[in-house]
């Protein structure tokens, strides 16, 4: 477990909801019926990215740059001391493009651009290139802990005092091919369902999603502060109901809190009925008197979905509001001093983040 004092002084999120460019918090939730996957609502990139620069960028790179730039604008920091990105599958659109061309053209006359843009660190590098930022830059690509790894690196930089402001983000995209492949594995639902029904739905698989969420983390609060990351833990082993419960309890205890100090719990239920019981257990036992919420009906399931959860939590603390559309139970809420995020990626890896109100 890492105890930190990192202030979220900027946050921006591109997601399947209207979360960017003034969409912010009071988002009209798009109920997508018969959704194959939840596709991001993308902004007009021209606002920040010159078409001459954007021309060879794939969606995921543009989403990353736009979210990063928006986040920085909110924070008032032009040049961060580090740019750290997490991505589970990286730039799959360009990877597929080059791979397809290679196969279809029998290795001849291949356009280099998709190859160049296919490396996992393209997003992070293009952000630094865009900002003309020469500082530390790294990219983590480790499945469901990709964003968590990036976050840990950023928090470590602040703790080491080798940075005052770090830009940390999580980005992933869906392509038709990647969706098909993951459906064949049973990761995603084979029938299209409405995202807002997935708690009731009894089918296997989750709904695929994508997104780009960036945060400006600082060692000091500012007028733009959303919340404080007080503690963080990541686990690369899978949990069952018991071990998840025990680890969640231990995390709370190690932060010198009682269960009833946790004002809100944000759970990574992903709609795959085979795994709903993991979080059902939490919501119905140790957290049954806490405000329980969920988020993957908004962003879908993807490797770096924790970054969406962090954005959502930061927004709830800043706005002192819990929107109806994230509620699982009807426990009334008051202050939002401590928010606990419990996420997992397809039950393989887990993370806990404790977010605190920076004012109190």
């Amino acid at each position, binding site marked *: 477990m890492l105890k930190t004092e990192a202030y979220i002084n900027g946050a921006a999120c591109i997601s399947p909801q209207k979360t960017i460019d003034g969409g912010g918090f009071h988002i009209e939730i798009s109920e997508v019926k018969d959704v194959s996957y939840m596709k991001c609502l993308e902004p007009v990139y021209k606002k920040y990215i010159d*078409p*001459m620069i954007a*021309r*060879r960028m794939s969606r995921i790179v543009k989403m990353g740059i736009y979210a990063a730039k928006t986040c920085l604008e909110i924070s008032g920091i032009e040049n961060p001391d580090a740019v750290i990105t997490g991505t589970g599958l990286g730039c799959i659109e360009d990877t597929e493009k080059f791979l397809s061309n290679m196969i279809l053209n029998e290795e001849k*006359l*291949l*356009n*280099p*651009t998709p190859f160049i843009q296919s490396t996992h660190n393209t997003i992070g590098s293009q952000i630094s290139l865009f900002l003309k930022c020469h500082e530390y830059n790294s990219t983590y690509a480790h499945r469901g802990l990709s964003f968590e790894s990036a976050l840990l690196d950023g928090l470590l930089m602040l703790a080491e005092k080798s940075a005052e402001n770090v830009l940390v983000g999580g980005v992933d995209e869906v392509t038709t091919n990647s969706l098909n492949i993951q459906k064949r594995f049973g990761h995603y639902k084979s029938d299209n369902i409405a995202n807002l029904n997935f708690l009731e739905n009894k089918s296997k698989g989750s709904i695929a999603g994508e997104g780009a969420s960036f945060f400006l983390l600082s060692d000091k609060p500012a007028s733009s502060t959303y919340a404080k990351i007080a503690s963080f833990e990541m686990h690369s082993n899978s949990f069952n109901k018991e071990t998840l419960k025990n680890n969640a309890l231990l995390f709370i205890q190690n932060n010198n809190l009682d269960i009833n100090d946790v004002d809100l719990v944000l759970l990574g239920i992903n709609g795959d009925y085979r795994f709903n019981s993991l979080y059902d257990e939490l919501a119905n036992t140790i957290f049954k008197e806490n405000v329980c919420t969920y988020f993957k009906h908004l962003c879908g399931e993807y490797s770096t979905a924790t970054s969406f959860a962090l954005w959502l939590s930061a927004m709830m603390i800043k706005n002192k509001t819990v929107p109806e559309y994230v509620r699982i139970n009807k426990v009334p809420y008051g202050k939002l001093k401590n928010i606990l995020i419990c996420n997992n990626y397809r039950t393989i890896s887990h993370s806990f983040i404790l977010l605190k109100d920076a004012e109190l």
Partner: protein
Amino acid sequence: MEELTEKLKKEIIEALNLEETNASDIDTDAPLFMEGLGLDSIDALELIVLLEKKYGLKIHAAKEGKKVLYSVKTMAEYIRKNNKG
């Protein structure tokens, strides 16, 4: 020659995804790299692929590429000279 340069300009726009540029914006004689359109080394590679795909002309080395790809005019002259497409 006019026809060829116009065709080339359209092909360049497509190959390099210059969405906001029209053929009329590209000066036939102006340098394509550094100034003019301000293309870079990746664009040079894409134009080399274009020459081979559309005109069957293979450029083997960077130095040769630099001369041929100087401007739309030099590209057109190269195509006409080697007249395979």
